[in-house]
């Protein structure tokens, strides 16, 4: 395959495949086809990462028009790293799609469900790769619209208002991004990110530029569900079909945070933005609040999916805390945790899909006694849970440890306290799940049909759980790469 195809393949392949399932309305065909396309996208992403590691950043000019006249991709190590994560996890999660939709999506919606899945993947990949601010907005909307569809595709009626609320919040967020882009354009006359970065220093004293930066950051923060703009997240994740929760938890908020990194560190220049506009202090405080509030709220949930969703709010806090240290160590910690959190939440949400498959519920009490009946699923929950707490030898430990180190190096002791408090809460909410799994008797005799889930669900869950263990021990791909990215960013900022 020619190198000219590589940068466009992860986006264009799913975009061109998605309309197929509107014409061929066979769920099984759609599922297999989507997995094949997911494999292509993942392979292309991996090849891109290798290329970038070998030869440095890849530039791609759409339509042959050089930037800033045309739209261009500039794929650096950070972009390739996040793209591999997104396309990889979404591919593994899509394996579970075939079985997952059987229980949670009505027949006439199943084939179209996979179209929306592919569109969402394409939107997220486009956001990662693009080097153009307005193109970012377009792909943000592709991913958002398909996400609203995915969330509401299931049988739970509560998903409908949840999706609508997400739509309203998400559109307000996207419109904020649009306002931000417009004001930046008014101040500089360009939409290309690299060009903008070059032209900003001389335009930085324009008020339109300040306001544009603030609106852009707030809009992205809504998409990233950063406290206190997280209101859409718990309901959307808890009511969506399980496969969708796994997909979104592993990818959507991650991409939003990636965009944040790209915009703040590459385009605006970390120093100027963080100091001049007091962004750093505000976001650090909000991220710390996210950790404490999210973890505490997770502790109070009775619904397992809501529990995990609130835990996500907390994890986003950890990631942003790392980023806002704004040095190489902090960035490395944030990026590592971003990578690992995708693996944890993917595994945990998929395990819950397996629990529901044979008629189990999603309350904590529904987990009772499953440790014996569904040993493999329970094992996935154990591994994912331990990783979430941050127990050594799991992936979750690595990111938190790096964060503590980075904070200690800067003497930010209160930040370590926040991490400890969050982890203690995590011990609490994960403990409640494990206690129900292993030490509680099944509620009634009624659940006799409950047995281990089919392989179609177990395999992807186990793969992600195994990844949690693997990246807890071998950190070259996660923390190692994150370190290289952070070093590059440190140079840029």
């Amino acid at each position, binding site marked *: 395959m020619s190198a000219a195809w590589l940068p466009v393949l992860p986006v264009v392949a799913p975009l061109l495949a998605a309309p197929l399932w509107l014409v061929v309305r066979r769920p099984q065909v759609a599922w297999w086809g989507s997995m094949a396309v997911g494999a292509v996208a993942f392979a292309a992403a991996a090849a891109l990462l290798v290329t970038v590691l070998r030869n440095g950043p890849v530039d791609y000019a759409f*339509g042959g028009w050089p930037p800033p006249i045309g739209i261009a991709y500039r794929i650096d190590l950070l972009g390739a790293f996040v793209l591999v994560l997104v396309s990889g996890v979404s591919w593994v999660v899509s394996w579970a799609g075939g079985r997952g939709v059987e229980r949670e999506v009505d027949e006439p919606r199943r084939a179209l469900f996979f179209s929306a899945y592919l569109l969402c993947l394409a939107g997220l990949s486009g956001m990662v790769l693009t080097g153009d601010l307005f*193109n970012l907005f377009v792909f943000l909307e592709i991913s958002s*619209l398909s996400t609203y569809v995915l969330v509401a*595709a299931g049988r739970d009626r509560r998903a409908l208002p949840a999706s609508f609320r997400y739509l309203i919040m998400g559109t307000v967020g996207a419109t904020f991004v649009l306002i931000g882009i417009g004001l930046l354009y008014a*101040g*500089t006359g360009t939409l290309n990110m690299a060009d903008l970065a070059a032209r900003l220093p001389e335009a930085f004293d324009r*008020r339109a530029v300040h*306001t544009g930066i603030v609106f852009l950051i707030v809009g992205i923060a809504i998409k990233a569900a950063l406290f206190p703009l997280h209101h859409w997240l718990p309901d959307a994740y808890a009511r969506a079909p399980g496969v969708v929760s796994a997909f979104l938890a592993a990818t959507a908020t991650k991409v939003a945070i990636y965009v944040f990194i790209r915009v703040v560190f590459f385009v605006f220049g970390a120093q100027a933005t963080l100091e001049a506009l007091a962004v750093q202090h505000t976001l650090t405080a909000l991220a710390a609040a996210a950790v404490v509030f999210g973890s505490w709220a997770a502790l109070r949930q009775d619904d397992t999916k809501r529990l995990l969703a609130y835990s996500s709010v907390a994890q986003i806090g950890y990631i942003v805390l790392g980023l806002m240290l704004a040095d190489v160590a902090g960035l490395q910690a944030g990026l590592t945790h971003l990578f690992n959190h995708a693996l944890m939440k993917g595994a945990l949400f998929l395990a819950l899909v397996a629990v529901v498959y044979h008629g189990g519920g999603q309350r904590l009490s529904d987990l009772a006694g499953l440790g014996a009946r569904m040993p493999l699923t329970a094992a996935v929950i154990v591994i994912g849970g331990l990783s979430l707490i941050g127990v050594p030898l799991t992936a979750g430990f690595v990111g938190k440890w790096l964060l503590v180190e980075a904070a200690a190096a800067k003497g930010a002791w209160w930040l370590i306290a926040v991490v400890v408090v969050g982890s203690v809460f995590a011990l609490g909410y994960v403990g409640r799940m494990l206690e129900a799994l292993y030490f509680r008797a099944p509620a009634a005799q009624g659940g006799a049909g409950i047995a281990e889930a089919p392989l179609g669900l177990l395999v992807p869950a186990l793969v992600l759980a195994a990844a949690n263990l693997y990246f807890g021990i071998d950190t070259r791909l996660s923390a190692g790469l994150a370190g290289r990215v952070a070093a590059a960013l440190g140079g840029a900022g």
Partner: protein
Amino acid sequence: MSVEYGLTLTLLAFMLLAAWALARSDDLLAAVMLAGIISLASAAVFTVMDAVDVAFTEAAVGAGVATLLSVRALGVLGERRAAGRARVGLPFLVVLVCGGLLLYGTADLPAYGDPAAPAMQHVAPHYLARGGVETGVPNIVTAVLASYRGFDTFGELVVIFTAGLGVLTLLAGSGVSGARSEVDAGDRDIIVRQVVKWLVPFVLLFALYVQFHGDYGPGGGFQAGVIFAAGMVLYALTFGLPRLERVLPPSRLRLLAATGVWLYGGVGVACLLRGGAFLDYAVLAEDAVDGQHLGILLVELGVGLTVFSVMVLIYRAFTRQRHGGVE
């Protein structure tokens, strides 16, 4: 102050009045109409601001399609009034902060119509000076839309496709099929029937004109698709949905919607196969400008196809819904 600026300010003040009425009104139909009025007034503002393509689109989409769909949906929903208690405190605070920030941010913008503004300096002059020569298309908006920023437009097409797909997904299996008087009969009034029978061919002809004249004047695939769909909807309103479905069965509309996306993406892939970048139309023909012209023509056709079929599919999906009621 120039006359144009005064006109803009007057229109904006008028829109603000409408928005105020909208905020106070409990009547949902009135709210839809007021939003339509604001949208139509904004189309007038766009015209004053020389954005003829945008004005055209906003009038067709914001004032036309959005109002049509909203009224349809209101009928299906069976809701008339927004009776619930509004929240005041937090929204007011947020609006105050955001509005204050925006006023701060726009205060040192260059004055309205200033040719020395930063936005006019960097990229835009290239489009205006070279666009006509490099693409062979005198309407620079079309040149930028379909060629310089053709990848954005591909994304935009996918957004519309996603919306159609989403509406079909959400409303799948909940529609009404078979004979239903209201949907089927259309309008029995002889005046309406005669007028529509004469009008529809001209609407379709106009749509084709807009599709293929977009290189030289305002228009293009998107506007053409919307107008073509409007012609079809007018036909269905008058003669009943079944008559339209005989000509355009839903399966064919779905195929057309997909085909539009494939046509646009296919042109991109063809450019790749011929050794150019994605959507680099210059490689499509011997002469670069000829290639640009061909590429722009094809992708605009793709846009028109998908927009038209998605609009009709969405209209059909709403019309086929049972009215009111609870599951």
